[in-house]
Structures are given as C-alpha cells and as structure tokens.
C-alpha cells in the first residue's frame, strides 16, 4: 500500500472524540478543523462521522483521527463504543443553550466510564459568536472546567474562532502525556508510533491500548 505512504507520514496517531448534546455544533467544529468548512445547512449526524487532520506539535507530526458522534441520548447505544481507545475528547456545549451546559456533567461521567484516565478532555463552549444570545457565562464554564480538571475554550465554528486552538491544544496536551509516559515507562501505550501495522479507531485497537498497561480496569 505504498500509494498511501505519503498520507500516513506522521509520528503519532491520536484518536479523538467529539461529544456533547445534539445541535451544539460538533460536526461544524470538525469540518472547520479538518476542511475549513462551515455549513448552516448541515444535516443532523446519524451514528458517527469520521475525519482526520495532521498538525505539527513541537517537532512531531501528529495525526488526529476524529470521531464525531450523534448527540441524541438514544444514540449512545452506538456511539459509546467509539469512546474506547480515545486519548482526547472535545466535550462541546452551546453557549446559548444552558441545558447543553448542564448536561456536560453526564457526558463527562459517560466519557470517563469508557476511557483511560489519562484522556485529555477539553470543554468547548461553541457558538460564541452569538453574543446577544449567550446563556452560559465564561466564568461558570471556566470554574466547572477547573473543578473537573479539564481544559476549556470558547469557540465559534462559524467565525472560525479558536477552533484551531482548541484542537491543537488537545493534541499538544496528548503529546505531552505521551512523551511523559514514554519517559516513565519506556513504552507508549497511548499512541501508536509510526511504522507499526496497527489500526486505530476501531474497537479492537482499544484492547491493544489497554493491554499495554494503562491504568483503567
């Protein structure tokens, strides 16, 4: 499969999930980050969507494999399978709809129940461009993020504000975790170095990650 070598030119491959209530803008955050596109006419996500993008972190090329999930509660029957093996998550709420912020706690619980404790989580308040409709204050969200030990950023997929930063920060933090771990353990359970024929992003890689000595279970 030499034809695809160029695309796979990365040092690390990180699996990241986008979660949060329906209609908060997860799919547009993803399309903004991976294709620099935004659509006011997007369809609601059914099941899961997938996209990738590589960025440079420190001196390494990091490739993000991002799974975008349907937000409606009923869909967790399918989507929660995609949490496993994730090393990063953007937990998105809509700054104009307070209920989506209230539900963050449940999403967090669900996420932590399915992932490794080292997962890097960023709380993302999207639609920050709708200033006149704001229902969640930045301070409240910041306080929550501190309490829950997650990163925090407000974004606007529409105005392309902070989207790049949010993803980059998550990937950078994951990279730090990985580098630290590599120093400690001499092996790297949270990422797959280039060259190994392991596929990331499906159920089975998860066990690979966990068997490598992670702390959950």
């Amino acid at each position, binding site marked *: 499969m030499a034809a695809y070598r160029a*695309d796979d030119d990365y040092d690390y491959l990180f699996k990241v999930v986008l979660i949060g209530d*329906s209609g908060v803008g997860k799919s547009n955050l993803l399309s903004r980050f991976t294709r620099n596109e935004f659509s006011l006419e997007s369809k609601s*996500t059914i099941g*899961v969507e997938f996209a990738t993008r590589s960025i440079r972190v420190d001196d390494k090329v990091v490739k993000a494999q991002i799974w975008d999930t*349907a937000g409606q509660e009923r869909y967790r*029957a399918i989507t929660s399978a995609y949490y496993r093996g994730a090393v990063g998550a953007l937990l998105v709420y809509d700054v104009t709809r307070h209920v989506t912020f209230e539900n963050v706690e449940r999403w967090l619980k669900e996420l932590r129940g399915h992932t490794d404790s080292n997962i890097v989580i960023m709380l993302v308040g999207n639609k920050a461009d709708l200033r006149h409709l704001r229902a969640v204050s930045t301070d409240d969200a910041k306080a929550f993020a501190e309490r829950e030990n997650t990163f925090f950023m407000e974004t606007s997929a529409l105005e392309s504000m902070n989207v790049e930063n949010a993803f980059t920060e998550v990937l950078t933090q994951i990279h730090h975790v990985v580098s630290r771990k590599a120093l400690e353990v001499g092996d790297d359970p949270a990422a797959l170095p280039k060259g190994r024929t392991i596929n990331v992003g*499906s159920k*089975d890689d998860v066990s690979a990650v966990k068997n490598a000595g992670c702390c959950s279970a």
Partner: protein
Amino acid sequence: MDRSRGINDYEPGPVPSESRVDRYGFIKQNVSNSSAAEGLGKSREARRVRKWRKMIGVGGSDWKHYVRRKPHVVKRRIRKGIPDCLRGLVWQLISGSRDLLLMNPGVYEQLVIYETSASELDIIRDISRTFPTHVFFQQRHGPGQRSLYNVLKAYSVFDRAVGYVQGMGFLAGLLLLYMSEEDAFWLLVALLKGAVHAPMEGLYQVGLPLVQQYLFQFEHLVREHLPKLGEHFSREMINPSMYASQWFITVFSYSFPFPLALRIWDVFLFEGVKIVFKVGLALLKYCHDDLINLSFEKLIHALRNFPEDAMNPDILLPMAYSIK
C-alpha cells in the same frame, strides 16, 4: 416507436437547465450532475404510467384485487420503479397505511392539535437539519417545515416509548414529498408498527436494538457473500457501524442520491427490509476491487462516498435483486 409528446400530466417535466432545483426539488449542487441520464425516455415512461393506472384503478380501487391475482407482475413492476406521479398513492397502498388511515379517522388531528410531546424541542432543533437542500423544507417555518414538525410530533405522542429519534425526520421528510401530512403519519405508523412487514420501531427504541441486530447480520452477510472483502474489513478493523448505521436507520434516505433512495423505497415498502441488506451488499460488491486495496481511513471515506456510477439505480438495483 411512440413519439407522441403531448402527454405531460404524468411527470414533473424536464426542469429547464437554468433552474436552481432538480426535478425532485433539491437545490442543485453542481451543474454537471445532470438528471437527464437518470430517467426513461418520455414515451416509455408514458406507457408505463398507463399500465400502472390500469393496474391500480381509480384511487387504488383495483389494487388489492390485482396484487392477489398477479403478485409477480406487481413485484416485477415495482422493482422497475413506480412512476413518480403515482408513487405517493402506491406507497400508501403497498405499506398498508391507507387502511390504517381509514380505520382511524380524526386520530391524527387529535395528536397534532391537542397533545403535547416531551420531544418537541428535539424535533424543532432538527427540522432545519432535515433535507436542508430541498426547496420544500428550506423556508424557515414554511409549509414543509411545519408539516415535518407536525408528523414527527404526532408520532412522538402516538408512541411515547419511541418518541422522537434523529433519523425519523428523513423518513417523514421523504414521505411528505409524496403525500399529505396525515398520509405520511400513517405510513410512518405502518412502518414502525409493522402493518405489512416486520416492525421497524426497534431501530429507534432505547438501545437501538434493531440497529445493532441489523449491523451484526450485515457484517455476517458481507463475510458470506464477499469473503475477501469481509476479511479485509476485519483486518482493517472496519465494522458496519462505521458506515451502515444510517443505511438502516433512514433506509438510505439520509445521504444517497434522491432518485436512488426513491427506487429503494419502492421495493422496501413492498418487499421489506431485505432490500436494504441487498443494496448494501451490492454497493460493496460493485466497489469490491477498489475497496479491497484501501486501508482504514481511505476505506471509511470510500464507504461514505460511493462513486456516482455505483449509485445509478439501473445498475445497482439489478445487482441487488440478484443477491439471494
């Protein structure tokens, strides 16, 4: 060859080339995507409509009789595609929804006007995200969006255990392009409650049990019918939930070309869910030689973006029918 051109009451005629919508009412994405290649010649189409009119009788009065007498003729004709001008009526006849409507006068109105639903906000949030590129559903609070809301709300009250689940809007939206609100509602009921075929409600109930079952079965069918590809998928750790959930949840109405979706629905309503499996397998079969060379990420992309020729109903469907 019959060259008469006078007949124009049977189809929304060819849309002028400068029009911004295609013959089904979708905003054109690109000009090259011509709809001229999709249909039959005009005269052939007219002959077909005449045959169909004879078969169903005025307002569908002869239908039941005809189906009982010549089920194979009906099946064959449906597989060739129901004429667009008769589609709405025929769908109601073959799904059993017409009978439900007649047995339940006033029920729909009751559900829409007097009842409230816990799902109302969820439904509203998705209204503008359902067929957003179709003229009927584009206008905010326009007739299309209002009908869509009413049908979904009525269903969420009618079956509170199912309520509203994302994906149902595409079913309702598709139906509303061919029939009235009340007719669309009863067709939704016929499908989910299983008037003729196995009930679909398990696709939407808590835990999405039927989605899980269908995906599991589909994975096995892939291994059985396309063993090499099945093996390749397991090596690359691709499973059907990554690409086929929406095939089942929306019966191909979510992201497939509309002419193909309609043809699938013709057969789906008459023959049941088997056609969804068959079309899925046919898509994989058609693209087999490409798919087998792709690695994980390219595979996911390819499985969500089939080439245009693979989605030509006149190529794909015969292939699907041939799968036993």
